[in-house]
């Protein structure tokens, strides 16, 4: 049931709607805003957004599931994305990935038990001449060595 008058309970959604309005066109900015606030999209958040925009919740889900930066269901507080494309591969991304997996004790695609980190591999981050590269949340880090990568991540623990 879509009710555009239903109260919004998720503070992240409320904030996003206040900031971005409820035009259909604003769906992506709203979703990004909610992820920024809540780390991921819940059922409730998507339903409430659907209600506010007067569209189906399935449509919101369909849009969200298309984009890499709109995690659904669960995601750690911080997201680490290591580039896996060819230039970073040549520069040694595999060692970086292994070092991070060992450090966080999870595999790529997983989230640490304490919910602090989700670790993912990513397609080209745009730092091919300075690989290996990774993003921690929004921030890019380049010319990585395994030690450097761990040190950077440690700052977020």
């Amino acid at each position, binding site marked *: 049931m879509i009710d555009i008058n239903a109260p919004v309970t998720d503070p992240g959604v409320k904030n996003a709607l206040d900031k971005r309005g409820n035009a259909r066109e604003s769906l992506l900015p709203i979703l990004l805003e909610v992820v920024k606030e809540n780390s991921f999209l819940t059922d409730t958040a998507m339903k409430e957004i659907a209600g506010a925009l007067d569209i189906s919740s399935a449509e919101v889900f369909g849009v969200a599931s298309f984009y890499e930066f*709109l995690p659904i269901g669960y995601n750690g507080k911080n997201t680490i994305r290591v580039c896996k494309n060819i230039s970073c591969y040549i520069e040694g991304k595999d060692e970086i990935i292994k070092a991070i997996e060992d450090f966080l004790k999870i595999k790529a695609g997983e989230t640490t038990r304490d919910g602090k980190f989700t670790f993912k591999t990513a397609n080209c981050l745009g730092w*091919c001449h300075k690989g290996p590269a990774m993003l921690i949340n929004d921030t890019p880090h380049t010319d990585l060595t395994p030690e450097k990568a761990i040190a950077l991540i440690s700052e977020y623990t």
Partner: protein
Amino acid sequence: MARSPFPKKISDSHKRVDLIFSELPTEKTLQKIIKMTPDRIIRDITDSGLRGRGGAGFPTGRKWTYAREAEGDEKYIICNADEGEPGTFKDREILDRRSGKVFLGMAIAAKAVGANRGFIYLRGEYSYMAKDLLGEIDEFNKLLTSKSVDFKIELRLGAGAYVCGEETALIESMEGHRGEARNKPPFPATVGFRGKPTVVNNVETLVYATMIISIGPKKFEELGTKYSHGAKVFCISGDAGLKGMFELELGMKTDEFVNIFGDGATKAVQVGGASGQCVPRKKFKDTILGFEGVPTGGSMMLFNSSRSMYNVLKNYLEFFTEESCGQCTPCRVGCQQLLRGIEAVKTGRLPNTYLDDLIRVAKTMRITAKCGLGQSVANPFISIVDNFREEMMHF
């Protein structure tokens, strides 16, 4: 393999150009634009021979003419900063260092086609730049207002989807939908964002437009070759002796390029990123880096003799299998088949001749996929399989 020092000093090359990152006074250039008529702008851009620098290479003057002639109460300029092609990083650098020239390019396009709203679609991976960029946009908008120019720029963020670099997928994304390419025709120049005439130009294209207005079309037109006028920013990565960004005239031969940037053992250059062509050593001499030869959106990845071209191709196909929007059959299924196919051949589960079946699939993708993404998967596939067939095979 140890990397050799710079094989040849890049500064010695007569091909080096300095247009993109040169300094340009924003306000003064804007004054100049204000005085120009739309016809004059379009004539200059057309005369310069500028073609899109995002990869597809559509003549910019023609695109603007279509949008100018299209009917619409509103028209839009979109700066495509969804730089996602593996091996490119120039747009990020340009926006970082010379955003004013991008904004000017948008203002020029706006004046030419009669638009008063502009958007920069910045890929999600570059969202760390958004804060600074917003400030700069704000300043530029204020400048426009102070000069009574009815044009305003806004920033929109992508959310991590390579296909949104395709202009109609980008528009879909800006409208809050899944980034799926639209059927063309109609093209965005007539039916684009919100159904209105829309010009979508790459960051670099817009800066060249600014420079063409600034230095005149002739100086730009004289650079490069008969079919590839002007210069472009090359992003060099991989097994390169010299990495980074270099603005070079178009039309350079690949061997000349490899001499400057290679590490002495270059066996192949991937021109144009994952969606580009692989040029093997034996073809370096005859391959021109330009629209008459092998064009590039900027990505130049070098591979030396130690690299397995199978791994390279596999990496590209994994990329496309994930990044295809998935709506059209040739791309969604084709990418998976190519990837699974080369794996099956390499491991001996299918005969080496299966590569020919895969080439047939790739050729079908090239002419039947809905958008440039699916069409271009054939580029790396066919060029790598044709030139490095033995590396794909099982023995």
